[in-house]
């Protein structure tokens, strides 16, 4: 029998421990005289500062009557510059301006470097995930094939990929394969991630298929279905359901592993973090923010997979 615990009490203990850990972080930062500057972070996520419009050359300002159109008349008789889209006006009719002076501003929101990094990480993850699943599915099927060539090829691939560090693979993909086939950074990064994750997914799919009772394949074949039909309609849907939890773990790993492609200068979330640290000198805040953003991605994925698992459990 399960022991009955006092829920309120133990939940309180849980909160207290979390609070304790938080305090330790806070006081240890105090002890090294760290000044927290959280206010510097938001602009690297979303920049709400007005964008400046500068004078393209020396000249004078001419405004239309309703002040909606701004024209910069050049001194040297070249074509005038007409600016229509602006929200803030910094000059008046007849003002003399020099090249580079701020003459107006635009009030639009811009995405900051951390958000760009997040988008790049998301893009990298989704594209490599797609290819990894395709590679994994075919390799997994080849792995259990009775054809020795297919089987040995897939075993070799899986062992090669699992036996070498991802970082080394990324370098090989970028510097060797990337040079031979003239791949850009993004393609090389995606290829390395997809090939790496594909090997793990292949093993997950293999174990999923092998966990389905042989009677399922026999029943499908006895009804006249060929091997491919039996796989598509009978075996894989069941295997898919069973492999969801390990698959979710692998997908989460992929998102985290994608941070390694920053070594080939892809500005993903991690590299963006490093760059922002260089310009803010606020490493603690930036890395905590970056960690939080990764958590948002992986947490969101976990949540999606859990919903999917629930939906698929209808037949249990």
């Amino acid at each position: 029998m399960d022991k009955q615990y006092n829920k309120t009490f133990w939940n309180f203990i849980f909160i207290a421990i979390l609070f304790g850990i938080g305090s330790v972080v806070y006081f240890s930062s105090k002890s090294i005289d760290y000044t927290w500057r959280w206010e510097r972070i938001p602009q690297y996520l979303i920049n709400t500062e007005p964008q400046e419009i500068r004078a393209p050359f020396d000249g004078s300002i001419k405004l239309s009557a309703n002040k909606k159109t701004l024209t910069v008349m050049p001194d040297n008789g070249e074509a005038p510059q007409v600016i229509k889209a602006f929200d803030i006006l910094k000059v008046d009719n007849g003002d003399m301006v020099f090249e580079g002076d701020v003459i107006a501003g635009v009030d639009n929101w811009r995405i900051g470097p951390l958000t760009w990094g997040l988008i790049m990480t998301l893009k990298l993850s989704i594209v490599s995930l797609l290819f990894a699943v395709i590679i994994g599915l075919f390799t997994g099927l080849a792995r259990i094939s009775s054809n020795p060539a297919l089987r040995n090829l897939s075993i070799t691939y899986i062992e090669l990929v699992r036996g070498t560090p991802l970082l080394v693979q990324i370098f090989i993909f970028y510097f060797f394969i990337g040079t031979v086939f003239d791949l850009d950074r993004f393609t090389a990064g995606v290829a390395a991630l997809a090939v790496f994750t594909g090997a793990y997914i292949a093993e997950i799919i293999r174990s999923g298929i092998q966990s389905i009772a042989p009677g399922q394949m026999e029943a499908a074949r006895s009804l006249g279905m060929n091997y491919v039909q039996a796989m598509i309609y009978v075996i894989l849907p069941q295997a898919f359901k069973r492999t969801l939890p390990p698959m979710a773990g692998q997908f989460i790993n992929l998102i985290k592993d994608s941070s390694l492609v920053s070594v080939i200068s892809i500005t993903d979330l991690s590299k963006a973090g490093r760059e922002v640290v260089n310009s803010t000198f606020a490493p603690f805040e930036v890395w905590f923010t970056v960690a939080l953003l990764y958590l948002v991605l992986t947490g969101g994925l976990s949540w999606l997979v859990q919903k999917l698992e629930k939906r698929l459990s209808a037949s249990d």
Partner: protein
Amino acid sequence: MTEHIDPSIIVARDVEKIYPNGCHALKRVSLSVNRGEVVVIVGPSGSGKSTFLRTLNQLETISAGNVRIDGIDLTDKATDINRVRAEVGMVFQSFNLFPHKTALENVILAPMRVLKKSREDAVEKGKELLYKVGLADRIHSFPSQLSGGQQQRVAIARALAMLPMIMLFDEPTSALDPEMVGEVLDVMKSLAKEGMTMVVVTHEMGFAREVADRVVFMEDGELIVEDTPERFFDNSSNERLQKFLGQVL
């Protein structure tokens, strides 16, 4: 369509099965079954009766001999085994329903994918068959929500949906609780009455006596006795059969 004068729809001749580990599962087993005939195979466990049944649709490959279904040689490399299997229904001891599909989906899957029937046609036929096996009210249930007897009846409906010429039953009641055996046997009896060609591996001697046209006794991979139910159960002079019947009856 067929112009066979030969009444035999299944002809197995000198079937041998030797597993890679050296186990000699079938020793020169020969059996022919006529259209509309019900043949029941009995024998102690490990006698090779299930193995033999499974060679009839090549779920089990054979080492020597040959099997002909409706004149088509299954051992011939040119034979499209999937087309033969589509005409030979099989019911398994452990049901082997597709757990991710409802009863109706189990029944309509193969007609749609193998016979390329439209969904409407398949559903109509599927409902009719599930009604016939007494499961009209459970068509949208998943296998996990059905009792063993109900699952086995869905499995029979699933095999029938392919409109087979032959039905193979591999110990269809052995995994059932005793109170559910009757409902499955009833469905099989009505099938036999309709003139379905059936080969049944079972331990249900009552069924064999009542329904079978012929009963076959196998032991140690050999076909030992093949006779009508009356002579098989009451007048057999074979010692090994008498010993076996003495144990099970």
